[in-house]
């Protein structure tokens, strides 16, 4: 998407590498997030392919056991923290200001900082492959496996990498929370916000409130591994279960952080391509908020087999079942939105509809795990792997691709090819079902997750082979997307303001791609679907004044410098204290310069 720069007005500092390093424009930062995340997505996909190749046949020797542990751990970390979360952030960056009618986010330079810190943290995490081996204790890093007795330096990269990425997410989440609460266009009340924006603010608050818990757990692990504390070391009075609790207090809200952006995206796509307003807007919004609140009360359902005791099991089982209610509300509202609509089957719509189907499958297996005896049987089997991939691939990734196809004309001025798009959709849809559905069978027949190989004769050969074939089909689908992307970017930018001819929300009221200041005139909002209201009431937008006097914040390189300092803090913990000290100096210097930098 980097070539999108060519479509920006070619004014002095607005082109070239330097302009990307110093940009504070939310659209460019969104593009940076998006491109980086897609690259990480492909890296995570390669890691998954390695895992699936090793498991294709019994007693395979493609990758040895230790490497295998690193690959499945890094696959999870890459997909969660370096692909799905930043892809969500890419859409937040691009469309929060556009959809609420603002010229930028509340804190443009903080926005740039969060991207650069993310990039540093991501590279740090991935670099562990070169420096003594990647993390290998699984993405939830249970003690004592993650302790210094059993895990090498990879787990230190895990701790530092996640602390850095957590800082980036916290900064971004604070920024978006403030932007949505405070920067809405006149008339854009909270109950007129597009559902995507509502899901964004729920995600932002989930991150703001859950990341500190992860930070504490990671710091304790860091101290256990490096400063001889015994938080999770049972021998000396510690308790490995404490790690599990703290991790899942963060981890469960994190699951909603991954899935809610996708819910928001399809809540935008479905009404537009059904040419009907969203059915039950209020119900969908409150369902999203209650998922966010209830998400805090279910974390121990990941830990039923640790022996919680009867009462906690009942409480967490009940709260987990309760969360199915708001989720069901959403599903039925989406179906009702399509019911009786004049549906246009674009690629974006294909992906959106598939989310409803696939997420329902993943959701139902999720409710199964709320039943303690069932969960005890399925804990750590491939059934769980099937469940979580139906939620994260079928729910999150398919939703994100729906968003990419839907908003691509707005972001670049060009449409992605529908033919290749539908090819990609079918490859993804068939591939993911071939990969993940057999895992239900494997899990029920007892195949544990995270084993690097298995003997013949256990009845697992066929379904493992099917799953591996499916994963290669997904990879081909991704190649179709990459081809589609480059093919579209070679064409001229011809998309109209309202590229699909039926956009309801404010981003379709400005040019494609939008000017740096987003809107020539900040639009006034009278309805939940402002553009449809204006069309039906014959309201034409105010013409742009002949001379625009809009000052946007100037570019700044201090976010980049400060992110460098943050990265050095982390690198210093992993290498030498002097590097940390230098990092502190750089942070202090850039903070001081940041404050004094003129912003007009």
């Amino acid at each position: 998407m980097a070539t999108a720069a060519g479509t920006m007005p070619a004014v002095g500092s607005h082109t070239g590498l330097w302009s990307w390093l110093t940009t504070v424009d939310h659209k460019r930062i969104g593009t940076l997030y998006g491109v980086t995340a897609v690259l990480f997505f492909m890296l995570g996909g390669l890691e998954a392919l390695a895992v699936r190749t090793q498991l294709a046949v019994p007693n395979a020797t493609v990758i040895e056991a230790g490497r295998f542990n690193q690959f499945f751990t890094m696959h999870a970390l890459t997909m969660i923290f370096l692909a799905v979360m930043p892809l969500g952030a890419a859409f937040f960056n691009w469309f929060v200001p556009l959809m609420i009618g603002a010229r930028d986010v509340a804190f443009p330079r903080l926005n740039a900082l969060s991207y650069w810190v993310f990039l540093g943290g991501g590279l740090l995490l991935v670099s562990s492959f070169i420096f003594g081996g990647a993390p290998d204790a699984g993405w939830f890093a249970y003690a004592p496996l993650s302790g210094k007795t059993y895990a090498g330096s990879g787990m230190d990269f895990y701790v530092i990498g996640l602390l850095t990425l957590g800082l980036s997410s916290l900064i971004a989440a604070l920024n978006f929370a403030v932007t949505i609460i405070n920067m809405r266009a006149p008339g854009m009340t909270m109950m007129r916000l597009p559902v995507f924006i509502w899901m964004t603010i729920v995600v932002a608050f989930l991150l703001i409130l859950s990341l500190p818990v992860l930070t504490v757990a990671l710091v304790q692990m860091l101290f256990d591994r490096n400063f001889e504390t015994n938080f999770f070391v049972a021998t000396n009075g510690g308790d490995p279960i404490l790690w599990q609790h703290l991790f899942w207090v963060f981890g469960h809200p994190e699951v909603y952080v991954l899935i809610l952006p996708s819910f928001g995206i399809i809540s935008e796509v479905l009404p537009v391509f059904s040419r009907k307003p969203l059915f039950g807007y209020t119900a969908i919004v409150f369902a999203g908020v209650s998922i966010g609140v209830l998400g805090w009360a279910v974390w121990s359902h990941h830990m039923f087999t640790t022996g919680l005791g009867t009462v906690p099991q009942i409480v967490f089982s009940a709260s987990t079942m309760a969360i199915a209610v708001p989720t069901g509300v959403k599903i039925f509202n989406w179906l009702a939105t399509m019911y009786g609509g004049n549906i246009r089957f674009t690629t974006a719509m294909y992906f959106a509809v598939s989310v409803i189907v696939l997420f329902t499958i993943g959701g139902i297996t999720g409710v199964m795990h709320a039943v303690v005896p069932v969960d005890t049987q399925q804990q750590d089997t491939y059934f769980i792997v099937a469940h979580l991939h139906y939620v994260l691939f079928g729910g999150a990734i398919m939703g994100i691709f729906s968003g990419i196809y839907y908003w691509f004309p707005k972001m670049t001025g060009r449409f992605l090819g529908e033919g290749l798009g539908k090819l990609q959709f079918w490859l993804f849809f068939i591939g993911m079902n071939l990969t993940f559905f057999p895992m239900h069978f494997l899990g029920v027949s007892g195949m544990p997750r995270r084993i690097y190989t298995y003997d013949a004769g256990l009845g697992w050969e066929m379904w493992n082979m099917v799953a591996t074939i499916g994963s290669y089909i997904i990879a081909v689908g991704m190649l179709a997307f990459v081809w589609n992307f480059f093919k579209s970017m070679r064409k001229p930018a011809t998309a109209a303001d309202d590229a699909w001819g039926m956009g309801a929300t404010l981003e379709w009221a400005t040019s494609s791609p939008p000017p740096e200041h987003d809107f020539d005139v900040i639009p006034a909002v009278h309805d939940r679907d402002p553009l449809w209201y204006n069309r039906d009431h014959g309201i034409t937008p105010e013409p742009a004044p002949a001379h625009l006097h809009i000052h946007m914040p100037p570019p700044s390189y201090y976010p980049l410098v400060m992110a460098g300092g943050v990265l050095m803090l982390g690198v210093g913990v992993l290498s030498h204290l002097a590097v940390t000290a230098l990092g502190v100096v750089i942070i202090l210097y850039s903070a001081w310069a940041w404050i004094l930098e003129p912003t007009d």
Partner: protein
Amino acid sequence: MTSDMAHGEAQLPEVEHSLPSIGPRQYVMIGVILTVITAIELWVSYSSLGNLIIPVLLILSAVKFIVVVAFFMHLRFDHPALTRFFVFGFVLATAILFALISLFWNDATIIEGTRQETVHAAAEGGAAAGAKLEVALGEFHVGAAGEAVAGGAEFDVKNDGAVPHNLRVIKTDLAPEALPVGGGVVDESQVEVVASVADLAAGATGSATATLAAGSYVLICNVPGHYQLGMYAALTVH
């Protein structure tokens, strides 16, 4: 949060900058009150109020907390949305704190129980060295005297933990944490096991006898995984 609807249509409202209506005199008064409460807290903590001490101290510190937030941080005079955000975070933190503590309540008492048990066993074992050795098993540690005298010995084993444990007495010169491991257990074919007690249910006791020669021994529980979780203790025989 929809209270801003009214002025929505035309232009966004200006940022309010109303100043709180209290001045330095009141601030100093509040400072004095906070100091007095702190003094009362100190007095309470040294007093003999018994069971009342904890609730009284919690209430007093809550009062200080609220006074600082309401007046020093101006929350009482500020936009109600700020109060809502902060209170939501604070209530969530408190709720998670209470949930975690109640989830760990049982475990904590077990840990505390074995601390005294271990000390106890050590004292007795030391006194009766050469004849009887008491061993306490728990999650996940082996409590026993570190030294014994060569000769006949009886290991009296009690499982103080919540899950089954067993005991293996191994004569070895390896460090206690460095025994050969395979498949989650210490490989008993590679070491010299001089005495063993089969799996004991929680609360059960058992015993085994052995003739100890001078040298280094390690006591372990060889239920899969337990050794790695720290269930070993060194025993030196003189």
